[in-house]
């Protein structure tokens, strides 16, 4: 536990973590200190002055809270006419040249400037001269579009490119009321994390080309989720919405803070992978190319399974621990060989030393925990031998490299349980649609052995079944996530003391002492 200190805010005693700056320390106990430039990932810059507070102990009457560590006995003054006047004055300054075009601004509804106007300003403009005009719709590259007039010059974006990506594409040029954010001519943003700038910009000055004008944010339902773009398992918000007479559609992913996994940011590829959840989905049940109700598809699959002498089941390294367990159980039931062969998900050399992993599978560590064989040779041998392949959403052609298996695949009768319409699944004689990760919940283990749990976010009209439900329809005994856990605990030593409902939001590192906190 961090060391705690007692201090006073407006005369009232509060207990906060020692060493943290006042903004962060007081936020934990529900006291807001308004700020634009401070961001926990970027540190205190001290440029906006919105965070000025009074300290009644002989030091200068006003200090920036972002640069002031919480200390025992400190007397912090927030509810004071003098402080409120400063906040009003800073707000007036910020708004002098601001276009106040909230009705057409993507940020409206989640804009710090708007919120602070309501909380700390609420004054009429006294400006009677023409505003300074700057450039709008600047394409900064990487899908980031900038509006210089909306910018409050907090420099978060600039610091992000210097401190986090170390690519330094952005700068604030000129000075005084002509100051503006820009790129050096001909050198646009060029890094794989650039869209985080849109998240950290406190106003609508940095917008995402992908999201611009597509949805008002107050309509979006913002559910927590975990990115399945690679084995890092970054925490995200899945922002989705069902328009009147429309389907439930995902509009964007945003970074969700998890200091144990991804910090404050996510990569651009992961952020844009929401599109894969919306598009090219396998929603129809097909038997020999003909659309049938799901029950008929299940019947056909059961028929094949019952007849098969040597069935082979293939699982996906994206599937949750619970799904893998359910499949493992029916593999035993049907005497099937079980494989997790998924080399195609590994793009060697694509990862970096920050968040992006080579391995594009979300739960390979889980696959390994369940001791499911993933070798190519054993899979190829089993495939040559098998008379039926049941593929549970494993995209063998996720990347090139499995062309040599093509012939054997063509020679084998196949049942595909799949969330997307992809070449790896389309050859099957029976195709059973299943849910994708935004439509089910479960537990996955990332590349650093962090076990994380996520819940269902999206409910599309097609509402395909979770793979677990498919295994149940195929005769399995596991009907939901909870029922997978007694078996998981019993057969996987690393999970023996895990109760999923007790996994903290930031996840738990397996095989470490923390494990015991989650245990019974």
């Amino acid at each position: 536990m961090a060391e705690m200190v007692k201090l006073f805010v407006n005369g009232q005693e509060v207990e906060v973590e020692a060493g943290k700056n006042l903004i962060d320390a007081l936020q934990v106990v529900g006291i807001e200190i308004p700020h634009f430039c401070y961001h926990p990932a970027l540190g205190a810059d001290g440029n906006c002055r919105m965070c000025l507070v009074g300290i009644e102990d002989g030091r200068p009457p006003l200090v920036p809270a972002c640069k002031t560590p919480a200390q025992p006995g400190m007397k912090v003054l927030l509810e004071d006419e003098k402080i409120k006047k400063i906040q009003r004055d800073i707000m007036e300054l910020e708004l002098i040249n601001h276009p106040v075009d909230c009705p057409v601004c993507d940020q409206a509804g989640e804009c710090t400037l708007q919120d602070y106007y309501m909380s700390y300003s609420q004054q009429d403009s006294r400006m009677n001269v023409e505003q300074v005009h700057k450039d709008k719709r600047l394409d900064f590259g990487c899908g980031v579009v900038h509006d210089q007039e909306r910018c409050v010059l907090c420099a978060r974006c600039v610091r992000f490119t210097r401190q986090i990506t170390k690519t330094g594409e952005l700068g604030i040029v000129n000075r005084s009321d002509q100051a503006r954010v820009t790129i050096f001519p001909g050198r646009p943003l060029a890094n794989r994390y650039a869209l985080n700038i849109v998240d950290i910009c406190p106003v609508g000055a940095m917008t995402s080309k992908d999201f611009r004008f597509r949805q008002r944010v107050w309509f979006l339902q913002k559910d927590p989720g975990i990115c399945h773009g690679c084995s890092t398992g970054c925490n995200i918000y899945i922002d989705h919405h069902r328009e009147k007479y429309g389907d439930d559609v995902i509009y964007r992913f945003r970074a969700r803070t998890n200091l144990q996994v991804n910090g404050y940011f996510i990569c651009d590829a992961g952020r844009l992978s929401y599109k894969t959840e919306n598009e090219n989905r396998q929603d129809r049940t097909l038997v020999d190319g003909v659309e049938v109700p799901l029950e008929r598809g299940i019947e056909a699959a059961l028929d094949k399974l019952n007849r098969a002498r040597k069935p082979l089941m293939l699982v996906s390294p994206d599937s949750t621990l619970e799904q893998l367990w359910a499949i493992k159980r029916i593999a035993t039931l049907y005497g099937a060989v079980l494989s997790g062969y998924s080399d195609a998900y590994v793009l060697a050399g694509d990862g970096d030393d920050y968040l992006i992993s080579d391995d594009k599978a979300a739960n390979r560590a889980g696959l390994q925990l369940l001791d499911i064989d993933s070798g190519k040779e054993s899979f190829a041998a089993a495939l040559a031998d098998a008379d039926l392949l049941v593929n549970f959403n494993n995209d063998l052609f996720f990347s090139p490299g499995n062309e040599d298996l093509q012939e054997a695949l063509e020679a084998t009768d196949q049942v595909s349980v799949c969330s997307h319409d992809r070449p790896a699944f389309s050859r099957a004689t029976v195709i059973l649609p299943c849910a994708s990760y935004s439509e089910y919940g479960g537990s996955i283990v990332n590349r650093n052995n962090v076990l994380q749990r996520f819940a269902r976010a999206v409910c599309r009209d097609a509402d395909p079944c979770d793979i677990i439900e498919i295994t149940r329809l195929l005769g399995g005994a596991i009907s939901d996530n909870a029922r997978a856990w007694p078996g998981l605990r019993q057969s996987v030593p690393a999970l023996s003391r895990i109760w999923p409902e007790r996994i903290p939001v930031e996840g738990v590192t397996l095989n470490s002492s923390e494990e015991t906190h989650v245990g019974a």
Partner: protein
Amino acid sequence: MSDRSQLLATGKSFAFDAETDAEFERLAARYPIRESMIMPALWLAQQQQGWISAETIEYVAERVGTYPAKVFELATFYTMYHLRPVGTYHICVCRTLSCYLRDKQEIVDFLADEAGIRPGQVSDDGRFSLEEVECLGHCGSAPVVQINGEFYEDMNVEKLRALLTTLA
């Protein structure tokens, strides 16, 4: 302050000549961090070329080992860096409070009539360029004019007219 962010590109790459290069390295040795050299390097480049082009900024960034966007920030912040070619005589007229109150506008208007140049322009013959700048720090003897770095204080139109005739 006007918008100085529209850089001019010459289409030709820039590099320090041997003499400037030696001076750059001599100065660089003074600082614990190389980034401290951004401003001196810009100044040296300006002494060599007369002004600072987009290519100059890229060159300085490379020499100093930093991002061009960072050098761009400094070059546009300080008006002493010329981001356009200037005349043989670059005239700066202070426009901040003291000089403003002591009729700097008469000087600016005189130069517009006499040399035919407005702030931000270079005369047709290339001899003069004019710029309005912020406080030059000699407010006690306002209005202040600076020509190629030399200060001329307590100025007025007559003094300036006489001064201009002495310039080659």
